[in-house]
Structure formats: structure tokens, C-alpha cells
């Protein structure tokens, strides 16, 4: 659902699942809260749902920090960065996004890097730093192209074209 962009549905399903007793999906395969918070935070970011963003990114950050879960911590940073941007707190937003980008680059996750660069571009856009906007979108495009993420490529190219 998330991959298909059904973020609202993801939230609806996952939030109700959080209330259900028991953890395992099947023997040896748990559905930890980490992953549920990660997906909820990510979906909230896509929907620019500031309340959910705040709520789940904090919960995710707490668990990811406790267990040293770098990818989820990076997701939490990115969600927090988006929340700060939406709140007009651009410095905090940049700090969080920088932390996220550094982790994703270190881990070598190109699509996540691309998605974080898009958020950087959005931040630069609200700050009217067109050079950075252009740069972040271009770099994001490269990352998306490396994994053949067509919808992201098309969206990014479209934005770049509109920017001239």
C-alpha cells in the first residue's frame, strides 16, 4: 500500500493493528512496533500530517535509538526534519535532514537518499534558495534513476522542468 501511495490506508490499518494483542506474524517473524512506527511516520511525512509526524517520529526515534537501529533512526530524523520544516523551523529541519542523509548515504540506500534529498529540495524551496533546489532535485533524480523508481523519476523531472 505504501509503495502504491495509499498512505491513508496504511495509517488506518497500522494504527488499528497497534491495538491488537500479540506480536508475531508467524513463528520467528515479529511485527515489532519499530516497523509500525516507521511506516506510520513515513506515511505521515508523505501526507504532511504534522500531528502524526510528531507523534510517530518521536516514538520511532526512541525505539531506534534504544536498539541502535540506524535505518529507522534516519527515517525518524527525516520525519522530524519534515515536521520542523512544516513548522517553519528551518534550521532544526536542516539539522535533522542532514543527520538522515548522512546515515542513508553511509548505509548506501539510494532510494532513501533520493527521498531525503527531495525533502532538502523542499526545504530550499521554502527558503527560496533556487540553486540548492535545483541541486537537490538533480541529485535526487540521479539516485532515483539508479534504482529505476519511475514515479519518483517522473515527478522529479517534472519539477526540474518547471524550474527551468
Amino acid at each position, binding site marked *: 500500500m505504501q509503495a502504491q501511495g495509499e498512505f491513508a490506508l496504511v495509517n488506518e490499518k497500522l494504527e488499528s493493528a497497534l491495538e491488537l494483542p500479540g506480536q508475531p506474524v508467524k513463528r520467528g517473524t515479529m511485527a515489532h512496533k519499530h516497523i509500525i512506527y516507521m511506516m506510520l511516520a513515513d506515511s505521515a511525512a508523505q501526507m504532511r500530517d504534522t500531528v502524526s509526524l510528531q507523534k510517530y517520529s518521536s516514538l520511532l526515534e526512541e525505539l531506534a535509538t534504544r536498539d541502535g537501529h540506524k535505518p529507522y533512526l534516519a527515517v525518524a530524523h527525516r520525519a522530524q526534519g519534515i515536521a520542523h520544516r512544516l513548522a517553519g523551523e528551518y534550521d532544526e529541519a536542516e539539522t535533522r535532514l542532514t543527520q538522515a542523509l548522512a546515515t542513508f548515504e553511509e548505509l548506501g540506500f539510494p532510494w532513501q537518499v533520493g527521498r531525503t534529498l527531495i525533502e532538502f529540495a523542499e526545504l530550499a524551496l521554502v527558503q527560496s534558495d533556487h540553486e540548492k533546489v535545483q541541486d537537490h532535485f538533480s541529485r535526487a533524480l540521479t539516485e532515483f534513476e539508479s534504482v*529505476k523508481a519511475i514515479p519518483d523519476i517522473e515527478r522529479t523531472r517534472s519539477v526540474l522542468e518547471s524550474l527551468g
Partner: protein
Amino acid sequence: MICHNCQTANADDANFCLKCGYRISIVCQQCSRRVPSHAKFCDACGHALARSSKEGAEIAEHQLVVEEQPSQLPQTARQTIESDEKFTVPRADESEQQAPAQQQKITEQLLDKTSQPLIIPQSQSAPTATVDETAGDRSPPTDSPLTQYIPRGLMRKLEAARSSGDMVGERRIVTMLFCDVKGSTAAAEQLDPEEWSEIINGAFEHMIKPVYTYEGTVARLMGDGILAFFGAPLAHEDDPQRAVLAGLDMVAGIVPYREQINQEWGIDINMRVGINTGLVVVGAVGSDLRMEYTALGGAINLAARMEQTADPGTVQIAYDTYKLVKPLFEFEELGGIEVKGMDEPVKAYRVLERKVAAGRVRGIEGLHAEMVGRDVELQTMQNLVTDVKQGVGRIVCVLGEAGLGKSRLISEAHHFFQQVPGPECNWYETTSLSYESNQAYGLFQRLIRHVSGIGYDDAPRMMQKKLSALAESLPDERRDRAKQLFEALFGLNSNNGAQPLEGESFKRELFEVVYAWWREYFSQRPTVLVFDDMHWADAASIDLLRGLLPLTSEIGLVLICALRAERQAPAWQIKTIADDEYHHRYTEVSLRPLSESESNELVNRLLATPEIPDNLRASILEKSDGNPFFIEEVVRTLIENGIVVPEERIVDGVAQQYWVATSDGSDFSIPDNLQSLLAARMDRLEEATRATLQLASVIGRSFYLRVLQAVDESSPELDKHVGKLVRLDLIRESARVPEVEYSFRNPLTQEAVYKTILLKRRREFHRRVGEAMEDLYPERLEGLYGLLAHHFTLAGEDEKAIGHYRHAARQALAVYAYDEADHNLHAALSLLEAEPKTELHLNLFEEIGDVCRLVRNFSMAITYYQLALEVWDDLEDKSKIVAVRLHRQIVEIASDTKWSVDAETYEQIGEISQESQASLQNSLRAMEGEEPHPETVHSLVALSVDAWRVQTPTDWESAQNFAQAAVTMAEQLDDAVLLSQALGALANVLDGRSKLREHVQIAQKRLQVSQEEHFEDVREEVDALRGIGVALMYVGEYERALPYLEEATTIATHIQATDQIANALGIQAQCLFRMDRWDEVLAIEEKWRDLEKSYSRERVGETCFFVALSGSVYALRGDHEQAQAYSKESYDYMVSMSGLPENWQRNQFY
């Protein structure tokens, strides 16, 4: 000195046979030389020897003892005969059952060689020229009275059949004929015994002679009647037909004698015949050609009942015979006849007469299939018959074993022939009959009968008239001679005053006349002469036909000879001579068995729209082995047994007939007529070769030569017998490596041969085979457990069989052959007495429960575990650990099924599981303080899993405590595998409690344990690798997780643990997906799909991971169509596993 009576070797100076008491030597009165008792002249001085009445009396006395006391069989012979019910020859009615003393006396007189011998009248129907030959074909009248009636050829066969001296019994399909003199009791009371014996002797002649004419055997003389068997000791494929013909000859033959007796004595006697076909157990004893039979009750009683209820002067047959001869005779249906011991009345039929134009015995009434797989052969035949319309002569041999479709091919060619435009042509068909192969010129007699329209009921005068008309086609100077010859062929006394014909001159003149007749008669218009079943043609006819072959170059004559590839048959000469000397005119059409697809096609065509299960279809194809006749017979049997039934359905408003299977039915029996056909082949073998074939049939369709050598007592000559069987194409060499192996050419042959063996001997043979295999292959037993279990079961060695079945089941489980495992365990269970229940019952119940669990039949698994617990409760000497293990299994099922069965099923399982969980906890508490035990560890693990997977709400605390206790006990036991399993349980709890770093630590410890030097459980090692991979994945250390998962995949692939391969691949895919390495996700999905192709989806598992992940990749790449397809696949899978979403347990979001 060899006893002339029983062939036993005696001392040279013996006067009497040590075995049968027969006088075996006499002293020449002229020179005192000791000569065999049957000698007519002394071989030293040439003195004519006269046999004293005393000697005869000695012989008679012995025979009388045998006849009077049939139950006093030699012990060995009696032991070999088994039956459900010993047969007592029934009498016609109650009054006759009290056999008058005089009847007994008559029997004695009949058997006494000192009494008036039975008179053999000269055959009134034999042609002059063949009288000598016929007479010469009779056995010398110096042996028992019965032998006087036996044609010499049959005598040779019978002697060969009993040549081994003490023939053992056999199970056979036999047609039984009862015949008695009706009215004899009253008549006997009116007459002096001597007068009556004279009358009854004459009647016996009319009863016995037809039996031997059709190569049956007189099984027993019964005062005023006989019991004859057709099918034992010599079988023919048409025994039922022979029996009916013999019956008709009996009632016809008695007519003039009846008139004679009426005139001379003023009494009326008549004869009645009853016939039935069925399974009998035949045992042969005695020292002459008389044989004693013990028969299964049902079939033979029914034959007797047919006779008892037959009207005087008629032949009455039961349904089982009727169905086999229906197309050959005219019948009157008599309705149902009550038979003691049978619930339903038995259908009976009166045989009226032989049909002039007999129908096909083969084929299925009401069903017709287009010919299959013979396109090339049919085209050849069509070309040939087209040529004849243009006056081109040919010789054609259609070769093929029984049932391959020779007659059908010719029939199709005939049909085509009738459609081809051109001049008017003749087409005459003559079929040789198996029981007429000793009748000189029988083939030509039938041809003349056909061409000139002579019926079987035609009076002599009418026959002469028709033969005269036939001779008209010849030039004037030949007509009289031709007429005389033709009449001689039909046993008619010519009254034209010509010189009688004898010996060579008869042959020469017959040849000249027939040659001239053919040339004149068939040159008038092109002619096709078909000689079907020519392998049965008599030698004299073949000799004559050889001389007629040149005519194919002179006139438009096509000879089509259909025969089996039997090189010893006289007809084979026609094939070789035609090929050698008339090659330019010769065509050979060899029919081969149908391929599997052709056989399948034939089944489809026979049953226009068959809806039969694959295993039933496979069974039909396997048994019939490409033989169209066999396929038809097998299908016919299925229909007759109600295994395949017609069903009418309305399709598009039109009624259509479908054939549907009512049951699996794949173990149906060989049809009776096939059994007879195959038994007939078998009876042509020498006794020792036949015995070897029987032993081979016990081993199985395929058999190793070494095993046969080990069990065949005639091993020194075994190679000779095996070679003979190969040459006769009954068996074939199927492998040389790793050792010589043979297999039966046809599975039905193996079945037919096997069915002839008495049950007791089968048991003995199976025991020998089983023991031989154990001795010969001690290193390879694991591959033979199933076979050994089969042999020991049939040997009646249940204990051994059960052991082998359990081994076979374990072996089947190792290769995931769950059905076979289940089958083997149930087979073992069936060998146990129902009560009292023993520990073996408990073990088998538990093992069956294990198999049920593996095939996800959880309810049944629990049922079997509960049965095992019930047995455990009643055992006197019992171990608590067993009960703990059984309860633990039930608890584990509840854990396994939590998310994989529908809610209703889970509720049922859950209730039982709760009881077991409580029992298990109680048991463990009771065992506190006792020595650690591996089962306790397993149980603690099970309780741990139960606490977090089954209990609601989840009891993580208990789960962790149980797991920790399991770890502690496993450490005490110093058992690495157990410790690894306990650590795995603990890791799962920590995982579930989201203690992800502790999870990683325990998973690492587990890996360490599993990689110790002497760790022997590879699956557990794979699980440990997978476990660390999962633990690292959960903390986001995907890069570190991948090598462990790859190693797990490699090892799991090495041991072909498909579930573990799929699981490790699934976790790798999850890691790769989160690392944005999407191409690799799809590549791994490919590997999973390959696994699915090789195994089943259920066995491979992990479907949701792959379908969801790949679907996500396609969605992220914008391929929404593909993403939707994966989404649908995922949904369908979930529905197939757990029903509709409302029934899913939880976590459907995943």
C-alpha cells in the same frame, strides 16, 4: 523301472510301484525275462504276452481305493490345497443323493479294467481318409478307461502337466460342467445291476468323449454323472466356449442312444448339463490321469445348481459363463434361479445352438471406439485391397500378439474394401478355432462351409447337395472326385461308387482338386480370402495352403493371414515361405503395442467423455500395456464392477452421456477372460519353467535375478528357464547394472501368473523372497523397506512386516512422501490385532499423528495423539515421558496453527490444546527434581511458544521463564542441539518482547553452539544462521545479516530443505528491499519461483514475503499492472490458506 502309471522311478526288480501300487513288471512265460507290465511282446524272445486277470484286479483294486476315498489324499497334496469350503460333489436331487449301492458298483465296474471296457465307437463323422489318423490319435486302450477317450495330443499335454510327479494345487479360473443322466434312479431300480451298468456305460461315452474333444478334463465320475473342468490342468483362452460346445455335443450325442435304450429296455433316460465359470482351487493327485479337485464352494456349487435345474436334454449356464460366450450361441433367458448361500437369484440361460455367424467375443457391448494408432497399417491394408480390385494377387501376413488388433485391422480394411469402387469382388473370412487345431483340414472345411453356405445344422443330404453345387465350378472330369473329396472332409459317405481314398493319394488328390477349385472359382472375380487366428490352423490345412500360394500369381487372389508370432505353429510356415519364395507379392503388417498417448486416446474414445481420476487412468494404462484388447477388457471390468458408470447430463439442452468414476478403483482385479488367455500361455510351459515364472511373479513385476536364484529351488537350471521365458517374450531383461534385473513383459501376465498360486504357497514364497532380500542386500535395506514389508505381510509374518512398514514410513518422511508414509503406517496398524492395545499401537498412533501434523491435518493429528494417550493410560508398564511427549505434540499443534487455520478449526484445536497444556504443565511439575531429560527440554520449549503464541493475552513472562528453563536444562544435559533449540526459543521471546539487542546476543550464542565441531543437526544449524540473520535485520544491520542468510541458503540447498531455503531467501529479500537493492529482490523471487516449480507452494512456503516485496518493487517502479497482479496473488494465497479476510486471525496488514 519307471512306473507306467505314475512315472515314479522304482527298483529294476520291483513288481509293484512303490508310490501307486501299480504292477509295473511281468515275467515273460516263454523266457522268464522281466518286462514292463504294459508290454505286449517280450523284447527278448518276441513272445506275445497275455495279461492275467489277477494283475488287472490288482490294478483295479488300487484305483477303486482312490475313487472311493478321495479324502485320503496324500498328506502333501492335501496340504497344498486350500479353499474356503471343501466341495462335495452334489447330486441331482435328494433321492439321488442317497446313491444306491448299485450305482457305486457301476462306478467300480467302470473303473475296473477287468470289467467290460467302454466301447469306443468309430467316429461316424470322420472322413475315411482321416479315420486312421483319428484312431491313431487316440490313446491306446490299455490304461484307465478314461484314457481311452483322450486324444493322444491331449494325453501328451496332460502327462506333461503332471510330469513333476506331485503337482501342487493352483488357483484358476475354470469353467465347470456337470452332466448327469436324468431318470436314472427310477430306471436303475427297474433293472438288474448288470443291465443297468451296460446302459450307463454307454451314456458315459456320450458324456466323456465331448469333454476330451474340447480338451477339457473329467474331474470326477459320480455314479451316473460327471464333473468336467475346462481350464485345468490345461487352460485355453476360450474354455467357456469349449465347455458349452461340449455340453451341446453331449445332449445331441445322447439322442440316438436314448432311442436305442428306449427300444431295447423300455426306459427313458436323458441327459442334462449345467455350466458355470469361476475361481477354483485345483489340486491334482492320483496316479493316473484322473485328478481329484478341491474347489471353492461358490462357483462350483453354482455349476451343480445349473445342472440340477436344467431341463432334461438341455444345457443351462450361469451368468458368469454367459457373459463370456454371449456372442457365440443362441440363448433362452431363464431368469433368476435361487441358489443356496446366495442372496440374489442367479441369472441362468439355456443354450439353444451355436450361432452360424458368431459375433465378436471381444469389444464392449454398447461401446465402440474408432481404431487408434494403426494409421500406417490401415493404409497398407487399404492399398492392398484396392489392388485386388484391379486383379493383383497378394499374400499378406498380419502379425501380432493376442489382442493387438489383427482382426480389427482386417475388419476396417474390409469396410474400406466395400466402399472402393470397381468390379464386384469376393471377401471370405475363415477363423481357426483353438479346439480344432487337431482336426485335419478343419480350416478348409470351414472355408468350404462358408463359401457353399453349409450350416451346422444342415442334414447330410443338404450338405451333399451344397457340396455338389460347389463341385460344379470344376471341369466335368474332376467333378465326381471333387465331390467325393469334399464329402470326405465333412465325414459324409460318398455314394458315387468311386474308389475310396487313402493316405498320400487322398492328400495328393485333395490338393489337385482344391487347386483347381480355387483357380476356377476365384478367377471369376477378384477375391480376398482371410484366414484369421491362423496360428490355430491344423497342420494338414497349412500344408494344403502352402501348395496354393502360387495361385496369387495366376489370379486376382489376396490371401490375408492373421496370426500370432508363434514360430512353432504350423501357420508360421506360410509367413516364412511367402517371405522367401513370394517376396514380390508378400506384405507383412506387424502390429506393435499402442503408445501411452494412443492408449489414452483409446480410453477416451471408448468412454466418450470419461471423467476418471488420474490414478485410475494410469492404472488402466499400466495394466493394459498398450494392448487394445486388454484396454477394452479392463474398461469393461471397470464398468461391470460399477467403478466407472454412465451419467447423463444436460449440456446446452442436449442429453449427453458421461462416464464417471465412483471410486478410485485402481486396484481392480484382472478380468476373467484375460486371466484365462494369459493362463493358457502359461500352461504351454514346461512345469519347471512355469514354476520359475510363478516364483518370479511373487517377487514382483520386476525382479532381480539374484533374488530369483535365491528362492528358486531349481537354481541349477534357472538360467535355462529364464532364457526360455525371455524367448517367449513373457519377461524381458530390464537392467544389467547394478545387477541383472528382469521384468514381466506385461503387468497383467504377472498378475495372472501370481493368481494361480495357492494362498499357502504364496505365503511361503513371499517369506522366501523377503528373507532372500534381507540376506542379499543387507547394505541396501533402506531402499527396500516397502518391498520387504509387502512380502512379509503376504507371508503372514506380521511382526517383521510391521517393522519394515515403520522403516518405510520414516524413509518416506525423509523425502517428504507423506502419503506413502501414512499408507505404510496404516498398513502396519492393520496388521495389529484391534485388542488388546499394546505399546506398538501407541507408537503407530503417534507416528500417524506426526504424519497428519506434517500434512497440516491438525485435527486428525490430535485425534491420533489422543488415541495414543488412551493406550498409554491403559498400559501397565509405562513411562511418563511418553505422555509428556504426546501432550507436547498437541500443544505444539496449537502453536503451529494459530495463524494458519480458520477460526473455527482453531477454536476446536485450542480447546484440546488447553487441556494438553494443563496436563503438560502438571506432568512437568510432577517431574520436578527428576533427572533432566531431553523431552523435558522439548516440552519447556513448547510451553514457551504456547505462552506467547497461543495464550491470550500473551504471557511473555511465562514464555521467557519456560525458555530460560529449557536453556538451563539443555546446558545440564550438555546437548548442543537441544541447547541450540532452547536458545532459539529464548531468542524468539526476546524478539517478541522487542528486546532486539538481547535477541541479537542470544541468536549469536545459538549460532556459536550450532557451529561447534560435533554439532550434527544440519537443520538446526541452518535455523541458527537464519536466526542471527533475522535478529540483525530487526536492528537494521542488513549488510551484516546477508552473509549469514546466504550461508543458511547454501546449506539448506545442500540438504534440500526447501522450507529453510525459502525462509532464508525470504529474509534476504526483506533485507535487500530495505537496502533499496530492488533488482536483487526480484532476482531472489526468481529463485523462490524455481523452488515452487520443483516442489509445491505449500512445501516451499514464504509466499507472502515474496509476493508482497516484489509487488512493492513493481509499485515503486511504477509498474502498477504487475503490482496489482502480485497484490491479487497475495490475496488469493491468503484466501486459499485461511479463507476470506473475515476469518483471518490477525496481522493481515502485513
